[in-house]
């Protein structure tokens, strides 16, 4: 299952790297920021590298003020940061917040599904034991 592999990947590598600085992340804010498809598209754009409001607005047929409003929501959620000392104030993705949020939700989402996969294995071991006449 792809999700299990990813869950383990994020548990063991990403979470180690960011070493639970994520406990200060406001996941509620992250969730509502990510609920919007335009904001997810903006994040996807920023995954390729930092960009100015102009550069972000270009593919969206959206006014700069509208893009700025989306950036504010993303900034408040801790998903991006803006350079303050440059004229064009490029926006940059903050990977650790993103990783923490995705990790948390995927863990929750995978929890019962992954457990049930393991239950399948335990049940087949129990069935094998029964046919051998031993009981687990």
């Amino acid at each position: 299952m792809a999700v299990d592999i990813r869950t383990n990947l994020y548990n063991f590598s990403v979470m180690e790297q960011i070493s639970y600085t994520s406990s200060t992340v406001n996941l509620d804010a992250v969730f509502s920021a990510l609920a919007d498809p335009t904001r997810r598209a903006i994040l996807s754009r920023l995954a390729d590298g930092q960009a100015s409001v102009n550069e972000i607005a270009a593919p969206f047929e959206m006014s700069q003020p509208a893009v700025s409003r989306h950036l504010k929501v993303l900034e408040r959620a801790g998903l991006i940061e803006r350079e303050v000392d440059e004229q064009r104030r490029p926006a940059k993705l903050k990977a650790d917040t993103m990783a923490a949020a995705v990790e948390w939700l995927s863990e929750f989402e995978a929890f019962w599904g992954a457990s049930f996969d393991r239950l399948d294995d335990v049940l087949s071991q129990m069935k094998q034991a029964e046919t051998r006449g031993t009981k687990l």
Partner: protein
Amino acid sequence: MSNISEYVLDRTFDAPRELVWRAWTNPDLLQRWYGPGVETIIHKFNLVPGGLWLNEMKWGDKSDLSKMEFKEIVPQEKLVWHHSSTDADWNVCANPMMPDWPRVILTTVTFEDSGQKTNVKLTWVPLDATEAEIACFTGAIGHMGKGWESGYAILDEMFVEQQSARQ
């Protein structure tokens, strides 16, 4: 309140109901599968109404503790418990990662025959939840499966960028 979100997971297991029930109610068997690929340690398991299941999940140097209080036990048919995160002393506490996550989640598991197989249905509903808790739970349930695949996609893109930058 009929509009509270429910998390429902249905699964058919290829085993008779008696076996499936045993896998859920024998702590030695339960700790072999409960938890998504982590080490699970069951510190206490008292399968009576009002009895407790104290559970620890370990990965790396981290530990996640939860307390389940059994409410209803109908052998081979139904298990009902209250599910909560706890601190190191097994006191119910807010989820450290998500303060508005519901403190108590009503968990219901039902077991039904389906020929030689067994249908298991698990339901999670926030219990006595505040509006903030309901909003948080509803939000998380709502994001599953849609927002999150794109979250992964963004992270994947980013890791590819970082790796190619290192080389």
